[in-house]
């Protein structure tokens, strides 16, 4: 029954837990991890690290895990990549999983490469899918060349490690009748405090203006906007729809907007239910950030703009006429 013997077949999901919050990508990874573990005939194991993490052990089991390793801290400390890396490297060497999954969040993408390099194993970045092929190989699907190419990657070392893009998989939902094993490991105050800190978080500088990757509805503006003030019009539309405003890179470069709102390869990759692109031509770098949205609506004066081809509904026309009319109609519906 011991998983440390024989061929590895367990799946390990790293639960991203920072400053008292579990990132929602964790539940998506548990869902995919469950499917992979079933196919491999192994267990789904999760690991959560940090002060207060033991509150979430059951939650991870309800969400699909068979076993949870909880590294509870005796004292609250600031997020520390090196501390998480050490815990993960030791745990992976102990339990020898076949697959290790992280969220492709800024934190996951900073942490996972260190773990992979320490273990001298392969890591595939920002995956859109992961599956087991007919030969039993683990194949990871990921974009490359600024999203222009989709590549299927096989890892020939163990464990197979991947960071997985947020919002690609559906969480299973919580089943409170699910049973599993919780292994609680305490990290003592002595260890946390006396440790050398080559990487030390001194404090939080600022929150994100908006977490656009979480948004279900995004109204985005691009170079078709003439003035910074015109973003207010998009904001009004976004508010009426319960969404948020996003922008393409030129607007961030001209200082109209914070990068927190930038959609694209060098900004944020989003996957909302509705994406309304207003005056955005659709450069490859922008498309790489939004082309997986469920429904894409574009408003553009240029019928030859690339965004038209990538839209479910393309409206060819002046956004300065169409957006105000849309706002007016939406207000009428509210009355």
């Amino acid at each position, binding site marked *: 029954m011991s998983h440390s013997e024989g061929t590895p077949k367990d799946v390990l999901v790293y639960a991203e837990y920072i400053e008292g919050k579990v990132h929602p990508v964790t539940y998506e990874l548990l869902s995919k991890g469950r499917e992979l573990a079933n196919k491999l005939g192994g267990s789904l194991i999760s690991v959560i690290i940090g002060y207060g993490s033991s509150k979430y052990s059951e939650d991870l089991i309800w969400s699909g895990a068979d076993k949870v390793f909880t590294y509870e801290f005796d004292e609250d400390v600031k997020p520390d990549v090196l501390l998480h890396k050490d815990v993960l490297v030791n745990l992976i060497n102990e339990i020898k999983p076949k697959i290790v999954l992280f969220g492709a*969040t800024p934190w996951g993408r900073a942490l996972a490469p260190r773990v992979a390099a320490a273990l001298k194993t392969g890591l*595939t970045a920002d995956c859109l899918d992961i599956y087991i092929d007919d030969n039993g190989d683990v194949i990871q699907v990921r974009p*490359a060349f600024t999203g222009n*190419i989709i590549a299927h990657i096989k890892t020939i070392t163990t464990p197979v490690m991947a960071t997985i893009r947020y919002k690609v998989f559906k969480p299973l939902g919580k089943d409170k009748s699910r049973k599993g094993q919780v292994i609680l490991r305490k990290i003592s105050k002595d260890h946390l405090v006396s440790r050398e800190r080559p*990487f030390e*978080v001194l404090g939080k*500088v600022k929150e994100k203006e908006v977490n656009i990757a979480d948004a279900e509805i995004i109204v985005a503006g691009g170079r078709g906007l003439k003035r910074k003030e015109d973003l207010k019009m998009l904001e009004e539309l976004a508010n009426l729809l319960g969404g948020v405003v996003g922008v393409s890179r030129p607007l961030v470069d001209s200082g109209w907007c914070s990068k927190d709102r930038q959609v694209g*390869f060098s900004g944020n990759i989003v996957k909302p239910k509705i994406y309304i692109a207003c005056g955005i031509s659709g450069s490859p770098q922008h498309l790489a950030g939004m082309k997986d949205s469920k429904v894409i609506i574009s408003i553009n004066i240029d019928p030859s703009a690339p965004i038209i081809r990538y839209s*479910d509904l393309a409206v060819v026309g002046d956004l300065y006429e*169409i957006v105000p009319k849309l706002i007016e109609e939406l207000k009428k519906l509210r009355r």
Partner: protein
Amino acid sequence: MRIIVLIKPTPNIEKVRFDIERGVVDRSSAELEINPFDLHAIEAAVRIKERFGGTVISLSMAPPNAVNALRDAIARGVDRAILLSDKRFAGADTLATSYTLASAIRKLGSFDLIICGEKSVDGDTGQVGPEVAELLGIPHASYVVEVKEVSKNSITVVSDLGNAYYLVRLKLPALISVTKEVNVPRKPKLKDVLRARKAKIEVWDADTLKDVIDVNRIGLKGSATRVVKAYYALEKGRRGIIVKGDEGVQKILEVLKSEGVI
């Protein structure tokens, strides 16, 4: 300060052509240039050098035709450019690439800081920086949006950890990977461009590194991953319905209704 900048010569992604049938990139269709993210890494390094003195050394792993891209790096303030180029390095994934770069850094001797861009426009991984840091046993901060303070023993930066921006202090030597927000790269001056034309780009092959590398860990042989297949992602698009003007307003409302938004 001895600063190493990791530069990836990449094809210009706006110009490069894709072989749509085979799902590969026609590498002859665009010359290699400095990965756009890395321009910000060079600028960050040069700014630190301007304040504290020292040397900026760039390190790249690429085919021999990357030399021109590295002349651009010299024009932008890099003092010494090293190109790791050898058929034996080819086919490397992020693990083998990081190992090769880390080995070359060991050969270079002591350093204070390594700076790289957050990711490349061709690989899109963002993994090489943190992997190099791990292999060298030094701390790193990813997604650095601002360099706050540099001292003899530490660097303090603002790093995006996902949920928020944090002030992070790294003990030197350390590695930072920077975003495009960190600075606005200067355009090289004409005299620097002319000077760079004559500059020598040092080319190191696997033999140059023989004291510091295990040949089983480089190139395709040292890679943990293999590309099984690849295809063009943007070929089709969605090709939905196209309408004009006022009809568009009604159509948008219909879509919003059918999606349950209104």
